[in-house]
């Protein structure tokens, strides 16, 4: 993710500079924005420029002034100068809307590659401050995406969520967050650039459409079969994916509802005989695919197996996770897939 460090939006004019100078400028620019999960917006890191509407407003003022001069309208002067004064005041108000804000990023949850990471950002003003309106946030990488708008009430916190599509698995660096406002008159745009320090754990992309889960093998499963499940007499019940030939009685209709809704299979009751059956999701089962696609398929299987509540183990070159189930297990498997090699 080295691309993200260059993605800090530089002033547009910088692009025209010769190489070495641009690199120095970039280094300086990056130096100004050290990554952190909490950022206090001050004079130093809030920028402001007139918007296109602001320039239009300036042109309007010039025309109003010319009309006032030419028709010798003292009230025209009053109007022109009142608007000019309001425009100048609005510049300060726009800047004030951001200045003094504290941004805090909650640790972002892991996400699959290609899906959007959801960043929860808490905004708060200094104690005893005033309400702030019309603050928009977006990731710097998707310039044309809609801003997530929020207001920060006086003396309270506000939440904003921005999404960011993570391209590749592994520890993904977050692109800088742009915070902007045009409040109150839209004549100026104040913005700030924030580089969050947190990284997102990105699981491999889920294969789509997902290949069917491999069959669970009773004995062919190599390696130590460490069943954690306590056995209760011979009546132990397990779950497994529906297989052809399962009788209707074997199908657990209630438990099937969720996987079915997620596009999966029916779930059948696995009676005592299935205790030995272990679902191994193995690197070797995806032979013939490039490594990333193998990881994608394995990740999809992990998710599917977890959705069906089936015990599953994961075997990667150099990694072996014994069969189990539940949230921690699923996370462990996906993490292994995300960080493999």
């Amino acid at each position: 993710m080295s691309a993200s460090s260059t993605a800090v939006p530089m002033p547009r004019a910088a692009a025209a500079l010769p190489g070495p100078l641009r690199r120095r400028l970039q280094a300086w620019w990056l130096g100004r924005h050290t990554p952190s999960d909490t950022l206090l917006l001050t004079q130093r890191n809030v920028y402001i420029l007139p918007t296109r509407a602001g320039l239009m407003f300036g042109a309007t003022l010039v025309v109003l002034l010319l009309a006032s001069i030419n028709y010798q309208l003292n009230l025209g002067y009053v109007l022109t100068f009142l608007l000019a004064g309001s425009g100048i005041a609005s510049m300060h108000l726009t800047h004030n809307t951001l200045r003094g804000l504290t941004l805090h990023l909650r640790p972002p949850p892991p996400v699959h590659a290609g899906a959007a990471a959801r960043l929860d950002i808490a905004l708060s003003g200094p104690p005893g401050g005033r309400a702030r309106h019309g603050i928009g946030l977006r990731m710097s990488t998707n310039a044309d995406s809609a801003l997530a708008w929020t207001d920060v009430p006086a003396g309270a916190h506000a939440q904003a969520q921005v999404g960011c599509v993570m391209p590749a698995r592994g520890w993904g660096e977050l692109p800088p967050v742009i915070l902007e406002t045009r409040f109150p008159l839209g004549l100026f745009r104040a913005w700030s650039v924030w580089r969050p320090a947190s990284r997102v754990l990105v699981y491999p992309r889920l294969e789509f459409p997902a290949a069917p889960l491999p069959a669970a093998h009773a004995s062919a499963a190599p390696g130590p079969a460490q069943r954690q499940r306590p056995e209760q007499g011979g009546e132990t019940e397990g779950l497994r994916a529906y297989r052809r030939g399962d009788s209707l009685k074997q199908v657990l209709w209630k438990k099937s509802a969720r996987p079915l809704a997620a596009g999966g299979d029916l779930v059948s009751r696995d009676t005592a005989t299935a205790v030995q059956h272990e679902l191994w999701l193995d690197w070797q089962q995806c032979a013939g695919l490039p490594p990333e696609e193998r990881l994608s398929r394995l990740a999809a299987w992990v998710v599917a197996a977890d959705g069906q509540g089936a015990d599953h183990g994961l075997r990667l070159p150099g990694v072996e996770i014994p069969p189990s189930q539940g949230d921690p297990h699923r996370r462990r498997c996906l993490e292994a897939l995300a960080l493999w090699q």
Partner: protein
Amino acid sequence: MRAGDRPFLPRWPGWQHLPRDTRDTLFLLAVIAWTALPHLLRLPAWCAAMTAGTLLWRARLALVGAPLPGRRVLAAVLLVAAALTQWSFGSVLGREPGVALLMVLMALKTLELRARRDAFVIFFLGFFLVLTHFLYSQSLPVAVAMLGSVWGLLTALVLAHMPVGRPSLRTAADVASRTALLGAPVMVLLFVMFPRVGPLWGVPQDTRAATGLSDSLYMGSVAEIAQDDRIALRVRFPDGAPRPEALYFRGAVMSRFDGNEWKPQSTDFPAPQPGAELRLDGPALRYEVTLEPTRLPWLPMLDATPELPAIDGLSTRRRDDLSWATNRPVTERLRIAATAYPGYVLGPLEPDPALQALRRLPPGFNPRLLAWAGEFGRRPDLAGADASRQAAAVLAHIRTAGYSYTLAPGLYGDTDPLGALDEFWLDRKRGFCEHFASAFVVVMRALGVPARIVTGYQGADPDPVDGYHLVRQSNAHAWAEYWQEGRGWVRADPTAAVAPDRVERGNRLLPPPGALAGALGTVSPRLLAQLRGLWEAVDNRWNQWVLNYARGQQLDLLERLGVHSPSWQDLARLLAGAIGALGLAGAAWAAWDRRRQDPWRRQSLAVAKALRRVGLPAHPHEAPRSLAAQVRQRHGHAGAAVAGLLEELDLRRYGRHAEARPSRGWLARLRREVRRLG
């Protein structure tokens, strides 16, 4: 969109229950309607109807939630509006057509509110529309109404930048007024300091809308003004006011007559008349006059004002006929201090060939009047009489021959275009000042006496307001001057002969009062008079302080600030200096504000520093409670006061009723106690 799709208008759900977009749109439409309202009476009916109709249509679309019409419809409507403008005004350029088009354009633009850019266009058009009102009137009520408009427009602009939830109009209005109030110092500074210059290029003249005196005298034109109760000028006499009949403000002197219309001598070219001279007799009368814009190229000044002070951006010249001409129409309010000499003598005193032109009458016009004059001149008592005896005889005729003064004499010259004055003088005998003055001058010329018409203002309100005598448009007057050898030009006011009231007391001709004023007037005439007086005092202050503020006042201000013989460059320098100072002050404030960011943290630093002085290894991040414990441990009983204070701080900062900001007094007390401890 077919009408059958939805009810024509949905039930009004109440302001609170409208969807936000609908509410915002309706609010903006209301602001636009309020801004357009004063224009509706001034503009042609089609324009008013089109604007109102478009706004109502848009309001309905907003309420029903129907889609906006396509661009093709809008373009068609705009074309129709342009065609109607051309038809009404004969042009699409100029002030009036411009305002009409602006109104329609603004209304149509509301039908195109799609993107943010469209909204901005509406706001900027709105500010222009506000400005156009000032072309017609800059009075206090207009200013207040337009302040409301600007406030409304700013509020709508703020609303457009509050994307979250459903902010109340009040919140947005508060923000708008806060913005405007913060900008007010800049406004005052710029208004006071911005160097006033004259018009940059020729102002398009619009005689249609011009009020006050006109630049020619045509039957009936003064009657319209006589009913106009607006103020034409204000005059103040520092040494005491003269009697009203002495108040003749000379405007244009009309000596060219084509049978229907009197016009001023176009120019003194090629050279001033050699015999034209002015002798100033009698006491001087100092006065200060504030003239409303006349939009005419002369200044009505008291008879006779020999000299005017230099007026910035306007060059003035006294013509031979004692009128004060300017190099351009006067579009600004002027305040002029001058001295008049009511007992003046205006030459030439000897016969002069130039006077011949002032005996000339257009051939073929008013034959009966000329015949009457010929007969009148042959009266035995006038044989060999001089001009003043002849004039006295004509005035006596006016007094005795059954003439009456009326503001509504009807049109003369309708039946016989060549005999308008015949009809007045011999048949109907009803008229106002311009009829009398014009007939008098024709008769005098027919008698061989050079004569001319003087237009201007005569008289003033009897009671001064705030020390100012008010001269209204209804004081507009026309009188005559005839020339007599040895005496020069002599004023004769034939209107005084028939309606002495009009002249001697300077009484204005009051039109019937409006319904409310009428009712109030019958209940309590004194209250009405007092209200009127109060209003006029306020209006006068407004005029003196705001509208009359010009280059002269700016330079006076500089002089009072200690600049010797200031120029506009000084003004510009001062303005730049003031803006620079404001910028520096802003930078200083920003620096201070940065320090202010976290007052608690600053206090913690101060506390830690104070405690370290007595040997306690305190860190700013330590809680006051733990610091208190350290103090107690180290200093025992002696440290109880300091520890107590620290525990108090703990409560103040983290307790149930935690304070938002540290109090100053607490830190001072702590420092005192710490010093005692050390």
